[in-house]
């Protein structure tokens, strides 16, 4: 017998569920009503039943399977002890220590900053001529706790604000700055020339 397809696609979609018994009562009734008047669907249902016969359910040893299934876990899930470095208390202590050490480091670095700036002011004098180590004289400033040092070659180093200096100290500082201006230029003027020449030779390359 030649099989044809019923034009009702939605009904044909239900046929395998009808055969396997997966339909609810309303759909089951609807399919049965349709089957009374549709030879194509009756033939398809026969075919589907043959498929079910061709692929019968397989016998399985249930006891073997259930024996392998472990009982459900109850109570505390984790019973093994965590390694020392992964314990919560240790982690908290490590975090606090790290925070304290980090904060202390920042404070120490910040406190040392003024001394470094004083060294920076004094540095040109140390680099300057004759490579001698100038002797230092310490002068008390107007502000208590502020130390101003004057080197033997007339240069001044300070670790405080300019407003804290006396007139004499300011004069000394200005003298030191004038001395700095009189130094020979260290700019690499020889390098500038070839660059300028190149620019004049190839003006089109300037805008990139």
């Amino acid at each position: 017998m030649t099989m044809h397809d019923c034009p009702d696609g939605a009904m044909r979609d239900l046929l395998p569920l009808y055969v396997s018994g997966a339909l609810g009562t309303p759909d089951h009734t609807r399919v049965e009503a349709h089957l009374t008047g549709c030879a194509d669907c009756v033939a398809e249902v026969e075919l589907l039943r043959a498929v079910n016969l061709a692929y019968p359910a397989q016998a399985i040893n249930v006891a073997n399977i259930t024996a392998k299934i472990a009982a459900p876990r109850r109570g505390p899930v984790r019973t093994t002890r965590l390694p020392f470095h992964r314990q919560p208390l240790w982690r908290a202590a490590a975090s606090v220590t790290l925070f304290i050490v980090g904060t202390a480091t920042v404070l120490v670095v910040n406190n040392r900053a003024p001394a470094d700036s004083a060294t920076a002011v004094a540095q040109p004098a140390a680099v300057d001529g004759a490579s001698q180590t100038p002797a230092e004289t310490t002068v008390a400033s107007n502000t208590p706790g502020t130390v101003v040092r004057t080197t033997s070659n007339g240069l001044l180093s300070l670790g405080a604000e300019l407003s804290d200096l006396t007139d004499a100290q300011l004069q000394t500082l200005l003298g030191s700055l004038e001395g700095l201006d009189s130094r020979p230029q260290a700019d690499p003027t020889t390098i500038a020339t070839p660059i300028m020449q190149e620019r004049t030779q190839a003006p089109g390359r300037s805008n990139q």
Partner: protein
Amino acid sequence: MALTGNDERAVDSTLIARWKAGDQSAATAIVERHASALARFAASSGEREQVDELVQDTFVRAFNSIDTFRADSAFRTWLFTILKRLILDRRRAERRQGNVVELEETHAVQAYDALDALVADETARRVRKAVETLSPLQREVFLLRVTDGMAYSDIAAVVGSTEGSCRVHYHNAMRAIKELLNDDA
């Protein structure tokens, strides 16, 4: 008439809850409900030699990770998904070891010829041969729909496809089988 999809889900949920509460007999009931369907799927996928082992592994894995099961899908669909993954893993492992046993269509037909004696009905025997000519994906979709009465959405979850695609595969498979049987007649 069998239970509908929602009823089936409710029964499974109750059994799972009972097993979690310590009732070991609930596990037996769950296995009894689904084992034969899983075995049929494994056998029709060409894993006839390892059906028992595959079904057992499916349940062991499912019960070990039952807390990850969400009731978005049916429990049976979830089991089929695990089984399908186990089959794929097994084939991949065999391929790595060099035991490549690609299931060509003709091989599948020959493999089932030996089992034809088990199928008494002549029509069913012819139908089996026709089904074995389908592509593996078409065959899986077709058999999950016909023998297990699965919804297309559940089939899609098992085979890793879309609902619409599964519907097309089912109807193409049905058409191909009809044509083969018409030619055979």
